[in-house]
Each structure stands twice: as structure tokens, then as C-alpha cells.
């Protein structure tokens, strides 16, 4: 028997075995080490534990009794998570953001810091977790993955104000609390007319935001219309209507078509001739400046309101005959306008129109325009083209025009926020592939998110170009593609493009092969955007508005709370729209354009919700007839409407009886006998009320004067003449409860102090009218005294 004959050498195998074993063991150790020691979140939690113990020690030294200080080692280092089975979510964000619900961590940097604001108090982390609002990847435990900024995770962490877009999962009200940018964006979606073309579900009401066009042909000049369609910014820098990228042929057509929308009555009326100065008086009485820009200040900044359009150049635009008709009955021309109906007689209307035309004409522009050749009247072809374009571009989404209904066939936006990113068309744009980036870029420059049209091998270039030429209306009615050699057909295409005003007249096909010519034509048409199928105009919103809009669009999502239990309580919204006589008057005078009544209307002027509690009805009656400014510094007041007497009576009666809350300031009615005006006067001085309010000429100008003098006003105008005790009492008790945004401070007065102060305020009556109204004083607290005394 041989003893190990020619044994194969195994020495090196042993070395390899040893080395690879050691190396493998090392790898396993490394994995175990990384798993147990180096994870990012462990470091954060250790840091947090340290901060906790430091803070506890500090607290012990200063105040706490001899208690044991918190040891850093007592704090367990472990995965922490919010488990939300109903939402199918596990949020481990709190594994790193450990101090999120600990107010003491407010001073720490990320990720240990506490959640800002009081959001967590209303949205407990146990119930809502983190990713429902913030998005990101809740299950992940390392930073990049958890923040969702990794491939294959479609919902990266929302940054900045974009976080407001997730509120709407539970908050179904039109106004979402603490989400100003979202609310602004939604308002913009309506205001800019986005909802005119895009369907957006039930959240936003579709409203036509542009003027009605039924008589536009009688209203404006052809030249103006042409220029406006080509570039609205040239006429009005702050124009609302976006610019459509249209070739000149299309603009000719549209203008020709719109000029056919005429009103014979206006056309046939004689040319008005009025008096400028009388018109100017009417202009001032009517307070046009509240809503319209009517002049420029020394630095050429527009002065006036932005509720209506600027009036600066209407003389260059508007037909005076139309203006006269409009002043007499604005609502028949613009049914949805905020402009009140004034009681202008025909003469007054003529005078006012005279003033308007003379005052607001840019004479340089007028002279320049006079030298331009007159535009020829539209041919029937142009008019037909205009009608097709009007439909193609869905102008009816914003403008009402008889016989042209809105199509609203733009892509539906109801669930745009939850559309998977890979279904969004980013085109060739170099932007990150996320929904917020898509929306922002699309709104900022709609045409950048598109593939450039290219010729593909194997397809007929002429057919392909012809199919893709936009706007379609410009080309569809022209003769169909001719047969023939490719060179001829290309030349024919170029001719059509020139005819439509898409390409410059002097252009010609380059010499060379037809392939080269086709590519040149594509290039030329791409340059002018005639091969881009997008119909959306460029709104050129500011960065802020773009973000607000993008956020509002992000909020239009299919993703919602898994059950109704999570829904935020809906705040009941009572729309003020009475069908009675007062309602008729409101609709005529459009009170809600300036006043707020309950949750309807605007806060440009006073809130009328508690007007019956607030003011003495006789004062109100007189005020409607002769409004005056409440503040010395303010020249703007309510327009003088020249209400017929029965209307102002009805309105003051109605407000005194209906705009009343019997609980408001009820304590005053119960305890008015305990009030002492003398103590109130002392308090008035002690509390520093004079800093803002004037009494008899002394005091600040921040709040309204308490002793306003209005010459020739047939009623006392001092605060005691005007206001009722119950309202004053309620106001002093908590001004923000009545008017949330008021700067009147809540002084935290005791009941007795409020009583005394109220008594003092009410005692401020104009001595001239004191005697006359003596009898009324006692009735101030009641709501049911008889007729208004004249």
C-alpha cells in the first residue's frame, strides 16, 4: 500500500480557501456592522437622545426638584413609525424626524426639529402620519429614498408651498384653511378662464370670464380689434386675455368675423354729443376710480382699482354710441359684470361718454393710427374662417357669443394631480420628470413641453406637414392637396402657408433635393410654431401665480381619504341671493361687488352681515342718499347712486331688520343700566384709544374718527349718532370675531370695562343734532322701532 503517492499539491488551495473564507466572513461582518451601527437614522436618534439629556439637565438645574436627569442611554434607539392601515401607509419618517412632536425641539436643526406651526395639533401623526400631506416614501429608512428622490418613486417629497396641494384630500371646501397659495391658485384657475376650456370636476365653477361679444362689432373699431388680437399687451400691459400665437391670416379672419357681431340699434343711433364738464361730475360721483384705472400718477403708475378694465385708452378703442347704450344699461351688455347699474338718463350717459372719450384717448396713438391705411372689410371667406377659428380655439370658453357654444374640449384636468408622471408629455424640455415641475413649466411656457415636429423616414413629407399644420381652420377649407411631383407639392404647401400669413411672403424653397426642401419647410414652419398642435395660449403668469396655479392643479387629484371619517368638516357657506325686492335691488346695484354679506361678496367696503345691529337705521337711510368717506385721509367713498327715495327706504329698512343677529352684544341690552360713560371716558384715555381714533380733532388717523363732521348731512355723523350699543359692545369684546382681518386690537377688557367704554362711545353725539334725535337714543338698542323719520 502506497503512502500518499504523488499527492496533488493542495497548499495553495488551502491558502485560497482561507483567504476567501476570511474575506467572506469579513463581508458578513461588514453587513452586520452596517445593519446595526452605521444606519443614518441611528446617528440622528443618538443625537436626539443627547439633546434630550442636555435639555433635561438644563431644566433640572433651573427649576426642577431633585429629580433624576434623563440619561441619553435611556432613550431607545429603534425604528419608529406611524402605521395607518386605512390609508395603506407606514410612515417611518419619525425614525429620523424624532423631535417632530416635541415643542422643546423647535430650536434644533433638521431632522430633529419640531413641526412648525400648530398643524400637528389638528392633524395628529397617529391619525394622518406624514406622507399623506408631504408625500415621499414612508416605508424607506434612508434619506434619499424616504424623500422619494430616487428612481422609480413617483411621489417625491413636496417642497415649499406645493405641500398645500395635498390638503384637498380631506378639505373639500372651496377655501382651505391655512393654504393661501392653494386658494389663490384656485381663484386664478377661475379668474384666468382656465375652466372655460378645461373641465375640472365639481371643485371649480365654470364661468365665462371675458366680456360678452354679441355687440362687439358695434363696440370697438376694426383697427383696435385687429391689434388687440395680434398682441393685447400692446394696448393694455395688464391685459387679462392671453395672446394666442396666430398668423396674420388667422387674425384677419377672427377680426372680420367678430366685426359681424353688431347691434343695429346702436349702429343706427345718431352720433352723440355731450358736455365734458357735466360728464366729469358724474364720473366723480360714480366713483369709477374704485374699480378702474383712470389716470397715471407723476411716475406713470396707474391709479385706480383693478376690478374693472383700465380706461386709459378707451377713446382709441370704443365707439361712443355703444358707450352711451352701455352706461344706460350695462347689464344687458355684460350680464356677469361687477359694475353696478347706475340710474343714468340718456343725457347723463351722453355727457359721461363725452367725458370718457375725451379724457381717455391717447391722441398720439390716434394720430398715428389715422395715418395707417384703413383696413378693408372682411371678405365672406375671412368671416367663415373667423367663425371656424373661434370654434377651434374655443373662444366661447371665455366669451359668450350667440350661435357659438363653448366646446370645453381641452384636456380634462379633473385628476391631473394624480396622473402618473410617465403619462405626462414633457417633450424635449430639460426639466425634472416630476408632476410639480411639469405643471409649473407647462403654465410658464406651454409650448416648451412638446416634441418638435419631425419628418420620419418612410412617410410622405407633404402629407405629414399638411396634416400637422396649425391652426387647422386656416388650412382645412383651402383646396385639398394636389397631386404631382414632390417639388411642386412642396411649393404649393409654401404658397398656402404664405397665403395664410404663416410664413413671410418673400420666402422661397431652397434649391436642392426635395428632401432638403422638405426639411427646410419643416424648419421654417417650426420656427413660427405652425406645426405645434397645442392650442393653449401663453398666459405669461408671474412666477408666484404660476406656482399658485401649479399647486391648485396638483390638488386636482384622484387620490383621496380612504373614508369619509377623515374629511374635514365642511363650513356651511350661505350664499346671499334673496329673491325679494331687496335681492332685485342688490342685483341691479351689485352691492356684493364691494360689500360682504355673510360669506358672499367682497370686502372692499364694509361687511353688511350685522348692519342691522351696527347702525342706526335713520343714519343708514341718509347715508345711502348721501354717502361720505369714513376716514379723513380717504377720498374714496361709496358712489352716489341717486337712489329713488323708495329704494333707499326699502334698503335701510331691510338691512335694519334682516342683517341682524339678536345674540350679538346681548349683554349690552341686559346690562346697559350698569354702564357709566364717565368711567368709559377715563378708560378711553387709559387704554390709548386716541392713538388711532380722533375725538374732536385730537387723536390718530389709523382708525375712523369718532366725531366725523359732514357738512349738510341731514343726520348726526358722530359715532354715537351712528352706531348701536349692541354692536359697539360686541366689537369691543372681540373685534376679530366680527371682522377677522381688522387691525383693531382685542384689548381683553372686562365686561364692566366694555360696558363703560360702550356707554362713552355712544355718548359721542354731534351736539347740533342732539336735541333733534333725543328721542331715538333709547331705541338704539332695539331693532323694532317704526318707520324711518325724515
Amino acid at each position, binding site marked *: 500500500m502506497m503512502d500518499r503517492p504523488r499527492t496533488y499539491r493542495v497548499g495553495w488551495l488551502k491558502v485560497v480557501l482561507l483567504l476567501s473564507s476570511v474575506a467572506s466572513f469579513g463581508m458578513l461582518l461588514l453587513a452586520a456592522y452596517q445593519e446595526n451601527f452605521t444606519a443614518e437614522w441611528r446617528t440622528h436618534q443618538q443625537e436626539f437622545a443627547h439633546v434630550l439629556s442636555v435639555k433635561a439637565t438644563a431644566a433640572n438645574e433651573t427649576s426642577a426638584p431633585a429629580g433624576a436627569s434623563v440619561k441619553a442611554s435611556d432613550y431607545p434607539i429603534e425604528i419608529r413609525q406611524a402605521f395607518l392601515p386605512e390609508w395603506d401607509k*407606514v410612515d417611518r419618517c419619525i425614525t429620523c424626524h424624532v423631535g417632530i412632536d416635541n415643542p422643546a425641539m423647535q430650536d434644533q436643526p433638521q431632522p430633529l426639529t419640531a413641526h412648525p406651526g400648530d398643524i400637528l395639533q389638528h392633524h395628529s401623526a397617529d391619525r394622518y402620519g406624514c406622507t399623506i400631506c408631504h408625500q415621499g416614501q414612508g416605508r424607506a429608512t434612508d434619506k434619499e429614498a424616504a424623500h422619494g428622490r430616487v428612481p422609480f418613486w413617483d411621489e417625491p417629497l413636496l417642497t415649499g408651498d406645493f405641500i398645500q396641494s395635498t390638503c384637498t384630500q380631506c378639505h373639500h371646501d372651496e377655501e382651505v384653511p391655512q393654504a393661501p397659495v392653494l386658494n389663490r391658485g384656485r381663484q386664478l384657475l377661475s379668474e384666468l378662464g382656465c375652466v372655460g376650456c378645461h373641465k375640472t370636476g365639481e371643485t371649480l365653477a365654470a364661468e365665462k370670464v371675458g366680456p360678452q361679444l354679441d355687440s362687439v362689432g358695434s363696440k370697438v373699431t376694426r383697427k383696435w380689434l385687429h391689434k388687440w388680437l395680434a398682441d393685447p399687451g400692446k394696448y393694455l400691459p395688464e391685459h387679462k386675455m392671453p395672446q394666442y400665437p396666430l398668423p396674420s391670416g388667422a387674425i384677419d379672419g377672427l377680426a372680420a368675423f367678430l366685426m359681424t357681431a353688431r347691434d343695429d340699434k346702436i349702429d343706427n343711433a345718431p352720433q352723440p354729443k355731450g358736455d365734458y364738464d357735466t360728464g366729469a361730475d358724474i364720473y366723480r360721483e360714480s366713483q369709477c376710480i374704485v374699480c378702474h384705472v383712470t389716470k397715471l400718477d407723476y411716475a406713470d403708475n396707474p391709479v385706480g382699482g383693478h376690478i374693472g378694465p383700465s380706461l386709459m385708452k378707451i377713446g382709441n378703442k370704443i365707439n361712443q354710441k355703444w358707450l352711451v347704450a352701455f352706461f344706460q344699461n350695462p347689464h344687458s351688455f355684460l350680464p356677469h359684470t361687477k359694475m353696478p347699474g347706475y340710474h343714468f338718463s340718456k343725457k347723463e350717459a351722453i355727457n359721461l361718454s363725452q367725458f370718457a372719450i375725451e379724457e381717455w384717448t391717447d391722441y398720439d396713438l390716434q394720430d398715428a393710427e389715422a395715418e395707417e391705411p384703413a383696413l378693408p372689410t372682411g371678405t365672406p371667406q375671412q368671416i367663415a374662417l373667423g367663425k371656424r377659428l373661434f370654434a377651434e380655439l374655443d373662444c366661447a370658453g371665455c366669451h359668450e357669443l350667440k350661435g357659438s357654444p363653448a366646446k370645453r374640449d381641452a384636456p380634462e384636468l379633473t385628476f391631473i394631480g394624480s396622473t402618473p408622471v410617465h403619462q405626462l408629455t414633457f417633450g424635449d424640455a430639460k426639466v425634472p420628470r416630476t408632476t410639480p415641475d411639469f405643471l409649473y413649466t407647462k403654465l410658464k411656457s406651454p409650448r416648451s413641453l412638446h416634441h418638435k415636429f419631425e419628418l420620419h423616414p418612410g412617410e410622405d413629407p407633404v402629407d405629414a406637414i399638411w396634416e400637422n399644420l396649425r391652426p387647422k381652420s386656416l388650412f382645412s377649407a383651402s383646396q385639398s392637396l394636389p397631386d404631382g411631383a414632390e417639388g411642386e407639392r412642396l411649393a404649393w404647401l409654401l404658397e398656402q402657408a404664405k397665403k395664410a400669413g404663416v410664413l413671410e411672403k418673400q420666402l422661397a424653397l431652397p434649391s436642392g433635393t426635395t428632401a432638403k426642401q422638405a426639411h427646410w419647410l419643416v424648419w421654417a414652419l417650426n420656427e413660427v410654431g405652425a406645426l405645434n398642435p397645442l392650442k393653449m395660449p401663453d398666459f405669461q403668469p408671474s412666477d408666484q401665480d404660476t406656482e399658485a396655479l401649479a399647486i391648485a392643479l396638483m390638488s386636482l387629484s384622484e387620490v383621496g381619504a380612504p373614508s369619509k371619517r377623515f374629511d374635514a368638516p365642511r363650513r356651511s357657506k350661505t350664499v346671499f341671493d334673496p329673491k325679494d325686492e331687496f335681492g332685485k335691488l342688490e342685483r341691479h346695484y351689485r352691492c356684493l361687488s364691494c360689500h360682504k354679506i355673510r360669506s358672499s361678496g367682497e370686502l372692499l367696503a364694509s361687511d353688511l352681515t350685522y348692519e342691522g345691529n351696527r347702525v342706526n337705521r335713520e343714519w343708514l337711510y341718509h347715508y345711502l342718499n348721501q354717502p361720505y368717506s369714513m376716514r379723513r385721509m380717504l377720498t374714496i367713498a361709496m358712489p352716489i347712486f341717486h337712489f329713488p327715495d323708495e329704494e333707499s327706504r326699502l334698503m335701510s329698512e331691510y338691512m335694519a331688520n334682516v342683517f341682524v343677529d339678536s345674540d350679538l352684544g346681548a349683554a349690552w341690552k341686559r346690562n346697559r343700566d350698569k354702564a357709566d360713560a364717565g368711567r368709559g371716558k377715563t378708560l378711553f384715555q387709559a387704554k390709548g384709544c386716541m392713538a388711532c381714533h380722533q375725538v374732536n380733532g385730537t387723536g390718530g388717523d389709523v382708525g375712523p374718527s369718532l366725531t366725523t363732521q359732514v357738512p349738510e348731512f341731514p343726520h348726526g355723523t358722530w359715532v354715537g349718532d351712528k352706531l348701536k350699543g349692541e354692536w359697539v359692545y360686541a366689537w369691543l369684546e372681540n373685534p376679530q370675531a366680527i371682522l377677522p382681518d381688522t387691525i383693531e386690537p382685542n384689548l381683553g377688557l372686562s365686561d364692566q370695562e366694555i360696558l363703560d367704554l360702550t356707554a362713552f362711545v355712544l355718548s359721542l353725539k354731534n351736539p347740533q343734532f342732539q336735541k333733534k334725535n333725543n328721542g331715538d337714543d333709547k331705541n338704539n338698542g332695539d331693532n323694532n322701532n317704526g318707520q324711518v323719520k325724515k
Partner: protein
Amino acid sequence: MQHNESDSQRPGEAGQAVASGALRELWTNLLSTPQQFFESAVRHGRPTSDRAASQAVFNNVFLHILPTRINRHALHVRTTFGLGVITLVLFFLLVVTGVALMVYYKPSTAQAYDSMKEIHYIVPTGRFMRNIHRWSAHAMVLAVILHMARAFYTAAYKGPRRFNWVIGMILFVLTLMLSFTGYLLPWDQLAYWAVTIGSEIAESPRELTDALGVTSWFDIGGLIKRLMLGANQVGEEALIRFYVLHVVVLPVVMCIFLVVHFWRIRKDGGLAKPPESGPPESTDHESGQQSAESGEPGAAAQAAALESPPGAVGSAKTYGLMAVVRGRTPAVDRSMAHTVPTWPNAIYAIAALSMMTFFVILCLAHCFDAPLKEHANPAVPENPAKAPWYFLGLQELVSYSAFMGGVGIPTIVVLGLMLVPYLDREKENSGVWFSGRRGRRVCLLTALMTTCSVVGILAFTINFGWLRSWFPNIPQLMITLVNPGTVLLALFMGWSFAVTKQTNSTRMGALAVFTCFLVAFAILTYFATVYRGPNWGFYWSHSDWPVH
């Protein structure tokens, strides 16, 4: 162990003394238990002689799959490159990590993806386990293919190993099926759409039955698909089916065939070896050096009676049971001169190779995370939806004809390869790479021809299209029969016949056909991986893909 005689001599004495003696004995027994346990388990210490080493291998349930002595040729690196061992180690790794992953994985469409995230993010070392599993799976497919190529090129499919080659082909198919069924389990977009593609391929016989107009009563494609998915599309049923296949059915079947595979290696005479490593296998000369010590004389005599001329050296054959088997199996090494003891030589080689494989996989698992895309979404197709890499070559062929690419050609190739040992029966020497210089030249030429023809036909198809673009109304049957895939197949067949005729050798023909398939597989896989983009269009690079 030590028996205290004095205790036993005085049984009448107080029981205390007896007890104390027994207690002492118990104590000493306890002390020696570890050594006793070890001896009872291993039955021998560290072997110090060849005989002991042989005994060790022979007596150990795990080691006895190896012969006690092994041919030196088998231990050369270039004989096998250790591919079989690597494959086995990977399979072992897959089983171990797979069981670990099973603990956390939830096979339901609602929870599968989330459970992957849990494994990734919070299961202790879960991510590591999954990475090991994933990379081992890919590595195993690769190793199996290379192992097959090695076996083919060294002519190891010949002679007694013919059936083991067939078993090997079955294991190859099983490996692909295991990998494919595991592909769906993460329930992400990649999984979902790869398996959707797979199920469409399974349905592709419908292309043929449609063309023949017999689908209404013989819908084999639809049947396969429904069997596979349990529904009309990939969903809950498919997931649970794939899960059961992946964790129970296929591994068990795989184990059974693996055992047969290993068993047959031994019984077929170990690894294929060239003649210079031992006498030709056709002689019955046997070396029975070690068998004389450990064998069963009766059976050995029987064997000797059947197989060997009486009185031959070492006629006492050890494999008693085998002695009743007809023919020359089991063939064992005849010449002691070319063998070395398995312990330590082969054992250390295997151990070292296993550890190295393990280490490489650990490194991969440490550096690269297994992919996990978005949650599966039936509404959003991946574009391009690509099958796992090893099926991409087929997917390329599927783009020409679903039936031929997905079912026809793979079936022909697998069956063809299984048949090769039965068609090529030349008694040529196994264990020589490419069977020598002539074979090397044939392989090289064939590789060149295949590269040219595959690249050529791909370039042609991309530039000029195929029948459908020239004759839009051509019947589908025509395209099923004549498409780039079948053209290549026909070309390879023709080439192989030509080679067979030219060299007058079936072995050369077999080398040619296998090289054709292997090179075409590699090129098509590479091509489909790198140059195919959205809508299976051709793109020079990923950056040319139309941005979406």
C-alpha cells in the same frame, strides 16, 4: 470509559460507594462527551493516510458523492473551470436566502410590493439577503449556460454520459423556469411587464393555430397561458401560481434531477477525461486498489465475473449493487497512476471554489441593490417591456414571429441539443477541448460565420424591414415560417450539415451547431439588451430614446 473493577467486585457493599463510583463515571463520561460525540459522528479523526482519507470520503454522507480517489485531470482548472461546483454553490445560496426571504414575503398583489419594501428597509439584513438571492439567480443562469458549453466543447456528452447530458438540459430549463417564476414575485413594473411578455409568448402557438384556422377547437396557446396565469392577465392568480412553482414545485423537481445528475457523474466514470489521463474507457481494465479494503467480496466477485476476465488485477469490484447492471457501468478509473486521493485534493479545491463564489456574490450584493421599480400597474405599460436578460434573445426573435421566437425555435434548440449525443456517436475522446485542433478551427469559423450572419440579418431587418413591409397582405403563416429567426435556424442547420459532410465527422457538425446557437444567443441577447428601445425600435444608445 474506565471501568472501576473494585466497585464491581464488591456488590454487597453500601450503595453509597457504588453510587459515588457511578457518579464519578458519569462525571468522566460527561467530560469526554464532546470527543465521544465527535467520534461517533465522524467515525474517524483527521485522516493521516490515503486509506483513512478514502475512508473519510466513503463514510461521510455528504462526501461520498465523490469517489475516494479522483483523476488528476479532473482537478485541473481548465478541465471544468469549476462551473458545476459554482452552479451548485449558487443553488445552495439561493435555497438558503430564499427560505429567509420566504419568512417576510407575502404572495398577494396587495402586499407583495410593500413586503419587498419592508425587506429592503427594515427587515434586518433583508436587503442583503435579497441582493444575494437576486445576483445568485442571475449568476446561476450564466453559470449553467457556461457549464453546458464546457460540457459540450469537451465532448462530455458522449458515451456513458449521454443521459446525464439530457438531465443537464432538463436542469437548464428548470433553472430558467425558476428564475422566471421568481421574476414576478416583487410585483413591480419590471416584474409585471416581463411576465406579461412571457405570458404572451406562452400564448404564441395561437399564431400558428390561427394561421391554420384551428384555434377554435385546438387553442394550445390560450391553454398554456391560462394554465400559467390562471386568468386572462397577470394578477393575483398568476402571482400565487408563480410563488408555489418558485418555492416548492420547481426546487423539489430541481433537487431530484440534481441528485440524479450527481449520481450519474459518479456512475458514468467521473469527469470526462482525455486518453492520456487513463486507459481508453472501452477497456475493462480496472484498478481495484482501494476496493479490496472496503468492498463487499461477494458482490465484487459477481462483478468480476460479469465484467472482467478472471484473474485480472484488482478484479474485486466495490460497487456491488452495480455489478448486476448490464454493460460497463459504473466505469471507474482504471489507472492508479493518474489518480490522487479525493481527500484532501478535491475537497480543498471544492471548498476553496465555493468560498470564492460566495465571496464574489457577497461583494455583488454589497455593492449593487437588486432592482425594484414602481408598483405594478396594469394600466401603465413599460415601454419597452423587456423580459429577463436570458430571454431577451428570444424576445428579439419574438418580435419577428411570436410563435417561432417564443416556442418554435427554443423547442427545436432544446430538443436538438438533447438529441446531439444520440446523433453524434463517434467514439472520440472526451475531455479534450474542441476535440483538438480541427475542432477549434471549426468552432472559430462557425463563430465568425454566425456573427456575420446574425449581425447581417439584424442590420438588414432594421434597414429594410421584413416580408410584411414589402407584401402587406402576405398570410401570417408565411411570416411564421419565414422570418429572420427561422432563416438563421435554417442557415445554422445547413452550415452544420455542410461541416459534417466536409469534415466527415458528426462531432465537428455538433460543434458547429452548438457554436451557432451559443454565439447567436450571445449576440441576440446583447443586441436586445442594448439597442432595443421603446416599441422595440432600434436605437444606438439609450440617450437616443424619445424622451417621454
